[in-house]
């Protein structure tokens, strides 16, 4: 058999199996991407519910006050469903939660989902803004630095990134307030207007917190993207693309970035839990009526359903973002379908919340 005929034969056979392999790989990836977070979700929510139950100063007693009779307490217990076996309680609670019913506040009787529903968009809108900033600023800086590797711009970017990485977001936030609200007086130092209510005003209030939250992420993305790009730009396929006469911009965006974006995307995914944690502190600094404020308030009153609700929502957000990032990773790089690089939810939330990466020296 001639060389190419033999090749074609083998090729056809392997192409057939390749197609099957690829489908299997997709399926495996999908299963993996979803199943790990689901397991984690179940355990974390169980812990949440257990915490509530453990801490449970008897809510009936709290609600009814000091001189509640045992009978009245028992009645209220039954009403709250607290006299059923624990696991049953958990699953009932979880079931309700997944359909949007998070119970009612012990004190105000406002449904928790309503309160959370009002508070969450605040955090969400600002977090999305922060993400956009992080991607645009960080991405732009990373690309510029990689293209002009070794130049002053490159070194400046690297330096700034290491510097920013050591600064906790609350400091950045405060610094921004000082500069823009106190000295320049162009932006408000606190408060919030809903996005749907008035986009212009929303932006005024959301700009500073968004920037403050994005700083860490932008630095991390810039650093990672620069490193990945510098490596990727040396690859043969870049030369190949140039040899085909493809314009530089096209090569950069459609070819190089597509391949080099993986690690940067991972970084982005890891930043999302940091955003959540940073948001908690940012709410206080910028006087935003967000989920964390809700939780803090509920904490002072031992309002357990609200606390549980906020914890649940947080867990949900972290896990959903984890799934989203993993899906994006798979979409960007087909080799990722072979299961080489996905972010585990615990890695995603690792060191999350506050200022875990502050102090990371370059």
């Amino acid at each position, binding site marked *: 058999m001639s060389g190419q005929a033999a090749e074609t034969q083998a090729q056809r056979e392997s192409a057939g199996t390749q197609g099957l392999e690829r489908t299997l790989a997709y399926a495996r990836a999908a299963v993996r991407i979803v199943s790990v977070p689901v397991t984690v979700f179940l355990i974390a929510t169980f812990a949440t519910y257990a915490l509530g139950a453990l801490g449970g100063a008897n809510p009936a007693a709290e609600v009814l006050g000091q001189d509640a009779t045992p009978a009245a307490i028992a009645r209220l217990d039954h009403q709250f469903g607290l006299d059923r076996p624990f696991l049953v309680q958990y699953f009932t609670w979880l079931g309700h939660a997944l359909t949007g019913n998070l119970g009612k506040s012990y004190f105000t009787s406002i449904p928790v989902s309503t309160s959370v529903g009002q508070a969450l968009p605040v955090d969400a809108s600002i977090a999305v803004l922060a993400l956009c900033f992080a991607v645009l600023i960080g991405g732009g800086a990373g690309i510029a630095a990689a293209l002009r590797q070794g130049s002053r711009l490159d070194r400046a970017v690297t330096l700034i990134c290491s510097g920013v990485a050591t600064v906790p977001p*609350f400091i950045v936030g405060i610094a921004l307030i000082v500069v823009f609200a106190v000295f320049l007086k162009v932006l408000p130092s606190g408060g919030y207007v809903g996005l749907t209510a008035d986009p212009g005003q929303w932006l005024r209030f959301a700009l500073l917190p968004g920037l403050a939250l994005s700083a860490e992420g932008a630095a991390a993305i810039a650093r990672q993207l620069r490193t990945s790009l510098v490596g990727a730009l040396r690859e043969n396929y870049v030369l190949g693309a140039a040899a085909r006469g493809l314009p530089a911009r096209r090569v950069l965006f459609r070819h190089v970035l597509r391949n080099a974006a993986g690690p940067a995307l991972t970084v982005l995914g890891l930043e999302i839990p940091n955003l959540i944690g940073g948001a908690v502190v940012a709410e206080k600094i910028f006087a935003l009526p967000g989920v964390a404020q809700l939780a803090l308030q509920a904490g002072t009153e031992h309002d357990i359903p609200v606390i549980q609700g906020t914890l649940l929502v947080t867990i949900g957000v972290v896990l959903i973002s984890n799934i989203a990032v993993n899906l994006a990773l798979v979409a960007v790089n087909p080799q990722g379908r072979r299961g080489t690089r996905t972010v585990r939810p615990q890695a995603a939330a690792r060191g999350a919340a506050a200022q875990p990466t502050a102090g990371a020296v370059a």
Partner: protein
Amino acid sequence: MSTLTSTPETRSPGSPGSGPGRSGRATPARRAGILRRALRLRSTQIALGILGVIAILALFGGALAPDNPLAQNTGAVLQGPGGAHWLGTDYLGRDVLSRLMAGTGRSVVGALEAVAVGLVAGVAPGLASLWLGRTFEWIALRIVDAFMTLPYVVFAVAVTGIFGNSLNTAMLAVGALIAPRYFRIARAAALGLTRAQYVEAAELFGASRRRILRTHVWGKILPTIAVTTAQALATALLIVSSLAFLGLGVEPPLPTWGELLSSDLDYLAQQPWAPLVPGLLIMITAGALNALADAIRDSGAVLQFDDTALDTAPDAAPDDPEPLAADRSAYGVL
């Protein structure tokens, strides 16, 4: 099944801390070797210096402070830095410098407490997971995964909200979330070392179990634990400060760094530079701890563990190995 790569260490007679023919009894000498190498770096020296100052302040801050941190003086409110008060006064006329110094202890103790909880709660289960059977192992791993998903601050808020607002409660919560790190290294270390070839080789050569443990196991694990602890301390410090900032775990009027930041915020218009002070202090301390961790790690003897073998979940695909320092850097999975 786990792979263990240990960066090679020079064990030639000329290596620091060991003289000729010492390689057999190398434990104290080797540990000294690692530390000595780390100590030679300028960054380590600076970091240790800073931490030394912090430690002294933590222990004796109250006594060393120029003024009584609790003494209010409504006549001299919100003053800038000056002769009498080097860092000015706060909204109640209290000397900022004194408050800062006195608050060191509380902040540091909080962080130490959290890390201690994490260590205790993490190492034992980590080691146990290897010997108590598959079920325990699987459950423990899943729990660890779940705990690592929870963001520190939110969890602490929830826990203190449910169980009461005290420093200890908050630190317990944070400690619980730090425990997974120790769980993983303890487990990985034990797993890797019992199967590491040089342990087998040493056994073949007739070294006693105890000596193996001493020279190989401790000598290798200790730096690793040191690195993790330093990083955990930095993280814990930041979280304690954030929590104090939010009002959790504080007992006014006793000062802590985070709480100072919070009160500064209310008077930002009058004293815009005020938050910078505690903020810088927090940053510098955390930075020093991280620099220390980096130095120890870079000095060469810290093991990188391939964590992938630890996943016993059926769908555990070959994920990225997560080097120990991953917790700190955002892109640690790489």
